[in-house]
Each structure stands twice: as C-alpha cells, then as structure tokens.
C-alpha cells in the first residue's frame, strides 16, 4: 500500500481515538507496519497538514497523538461555544442533574439504574461544567465514586442550601399527587423528617 493510503488510515484511527489520543506503538500494532515507518508517516502528516492549511493539526500530547483545533481559530470556536444552543444543558443532562440533586450522594450505577441508559458521558460533561463534584466514595465493592452537586450549582440557581430546591408540594397539588408523592418519597428515601414536619 502506498504512503497516502497509510496516512489516510492513520488519520482515521487518530481521529476516532479522540482526546484519549494514541501512541506510535499502538498505531503500529493496528496497521501492522513497523513503528519507525509509522513515526515517519506521522511526521510527514504533521508537515503536510500545515502546508495544506487544514483546519486541524496533529499534535503529540504526553506521548500520544491526537487531532486538535488550531490556536488561531479560538475566536471562532469561542463564538460557537457561546451560542445559546450550545450553552444550555440537554434534556438528558438535566435528568442526570436532577437525580444527583435529589438523591445525592449517588453513584453512577444508581443514576444509570434510574435512567435505564449509560450516563458516563453526561457525568463528565456536568463535572466539566462544574455543576457536580465528586463527593467521596461509596462503601462496598469497587468503592464507586459518589456524586453531589457543587457550590456553583447552588449559585447558579441562587440557592443557599440544597434543601431550598423545590419539594413536590410546591409544584403539585397535594391531594392530586398524594399517591405519587408517597411513592416518590419512598423511592427517594426521604420519607422521614420532612413528612413529620408537615403533619
């Protein structure tokens, strides 16, 4: 196979590796050509991309190759990041945030059990946005990470304490939702004090 074809394959692999990146050894194993050759191809690619005025570059971070945007394009990417459609949280992210807010501290597995779908990416996203934080580790096998809401989360909502989050009563009519409410309290494991206070 000629160099062009190998480069195309290497580009595809590095692109798919995303921000994890991939090192020369791994690349060589995947394409089954010698490491030195891979290294040479990568060097050439770095040069060619620049000459071609590509919109991305091939960089080596901590020994791993990955594709990133160009520093000179920052202004444009900033504009995209600040577009209202990108700033807000997705429906899924709100769901995860809601679970954490009301059930904290809570593990990823517990969150996924409630939602029925994998939620690791959303957790990362919320952590990056500093809405949630790691709040220690649970007991038991694997000692999974516990998640809770952050100080910023309260600030954004203008709350002083997490208890100031709306409780069911403030949204739903008492009688109408009596059944559901009881049920929910049980599931949330918050029956105790709050109910006593009401009565």
């Amino acid at each position, binding site marked *: 196979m000629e160099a062009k074809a190998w480069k195309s394959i290497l580009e595809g692999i590095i*692109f798919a590796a995303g921000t994890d990146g991939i090192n020369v050894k791994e690349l060589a194993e995947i394409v089954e050509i010698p490491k030195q050759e891979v290294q040479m191809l990568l060097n050439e690619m770095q040069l060619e991309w620049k000459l071609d005025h590509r919109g991305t570059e091939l960089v080596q971070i901590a020994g791993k190759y990955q594709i990133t*945007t160009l520093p000179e394009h920052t202004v444009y990417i900033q504009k995209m990041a*600040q577009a209202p459609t990108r700033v*807000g949280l997705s429906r899924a992210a*709100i769901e995860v945030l*809601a679970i954490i807010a009301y059930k904290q501290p809570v593990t990823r597995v517990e969150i996924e059990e*409630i939602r029925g779908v994998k939620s690791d990416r959303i957790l990362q996203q919320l952590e990056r946005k500093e809405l949630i934080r790691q709040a220690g580790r649970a007991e038991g096998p694997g000692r999974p990470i516990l998640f809770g809401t952050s100080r910023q989360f309260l600030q954004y909502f203008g709350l002083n304490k997490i208890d100031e989050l*709306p409780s069911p009563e403030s*949204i739903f009519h008492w009688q109408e939702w009596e059944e*559901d409410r009881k049920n929910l309290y049980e599931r949330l494991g918050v029956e105790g004090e709050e109910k006593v206070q009401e009565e």
Partner: protein
Amino acid sequence: MLHLIDKAEVDIYTVSISTITDQYLHVLNEAKAWNMEIASEFMVMAATLLSLKSKMLLPPTIKEEETNDPTEEWLDPREELIERLLVYKQFKRLGDQLEEREAEQNRVYSRLPLDLTPFTPTQNPLTGVEPEDLWKALFALLEQQKEIEQPLTKLAREEISVSERMEQIYQDLVREGELWFSKLMDIDYITRERLITTFLAILELMKLKPVICRQVDLFSDICIRLEQTRENN
C-alpha cells in the same frame, strides 16, 4: 407469531401446535439478552396462536352451522391473518432496510464534541433552567420507571416445551386414569407460560386422539381421559 408463520413457512392448518410452540421456546432460549421483552410478547403470541388454532380445531361443526344460515357470513380467521401477515411483511422488509443502514453507519466513527468549557468561562450553563425543572425531570423519570418495572416484577421462567408437557400429561393419565382440567391449570401453582404450554398440550393430545375430554355442563370442570382404543399404545 406472524413472523414465525412467515419464516417457518408454516401451514397453520396442518401444523401441530407443538411445533410452533417449541419453536417459540427455542427463540426464547436463544435470545437471552432480551428474555423479558420476548417473554411478555410470548404471552400475546401464544394467545393469538391459541385462539386461531382453537378455531381451526373446531371448524366442522361451526362451519356447517354457519353455512346453513345464509344470512350469516362465516369469517375465516385465516383471511384476516393473511392480510395482517402481508402488512407485517412489508414492515419487516422496511426493517431490513433500516438494519442495513444501521450496519453501514456502525462502520463509521465520529468524535465527541470538543470540551467547550474552556471557551465559555463566564457562561451560566443553567441559563433557562429553573429549579422546578429538576424536580419535574426527576418526577417524569420515576414515573416512567414505575411503568417499566411492573411487567418486570416476577416472571419466573420455566422452560418446558409442549411436547414435553404432552408426554407428562400422557404419563399422568396412564398412571391416574383420568385428570381434572382445573387441577392441571391451577393458577396458584402454575406459571403463565406453563399454563399456555399445558393448554396447548391438551389440545394437541386431543387432536392426535390419545385422549378425550368431557365436559358435563358449560363452565363445569373438564375431565381428561385416555381414549380406549389407544390405551395399548
């Protein structure tokens, strides 16, 4: 069921119930990951099959009565089935198209959006979200989960094929001489799947004639007995 009739090229009129049911059970065994989903579907499939098949087992008498009365049209359940089968087949074909596209798309990889947080230092990610929205989202989730959980609660699966059940009943009959239908179908001691298997097994045994069933009155208990002529088998 439609799928099976189509796939297995089954002739509903001549096929034995046990063949189809065994096939269902085979499907159930194969699809471990989807156990629950298929198990609940199985109930409906089996019921549809049962109703159709029982109509088939009875036709001589009913048909005569019906055709004797010219004002009443005897609606062949098979005709309805054929029309449904055709529509279903069309969607199955469309499903094949989707599956192809899925396979094609699965060969392609993209990457997650870049982490844009460094580009938006001052933005409030909760813009437009009210604290109430969180509660509502959680409420909706738990509601949904409640619905999902119900059919899941308990469905102890017991895998016994119709032919196995036929053999069991036959052996019981040889030993006991006769059996009461209500005993066989006691809902407290029997899973739904077993109930269906048992019912199908009895129908099948009747069709193959090693047993006869007697019912004195409408809704009274049915007595199942070995057919005299076959007893020496």
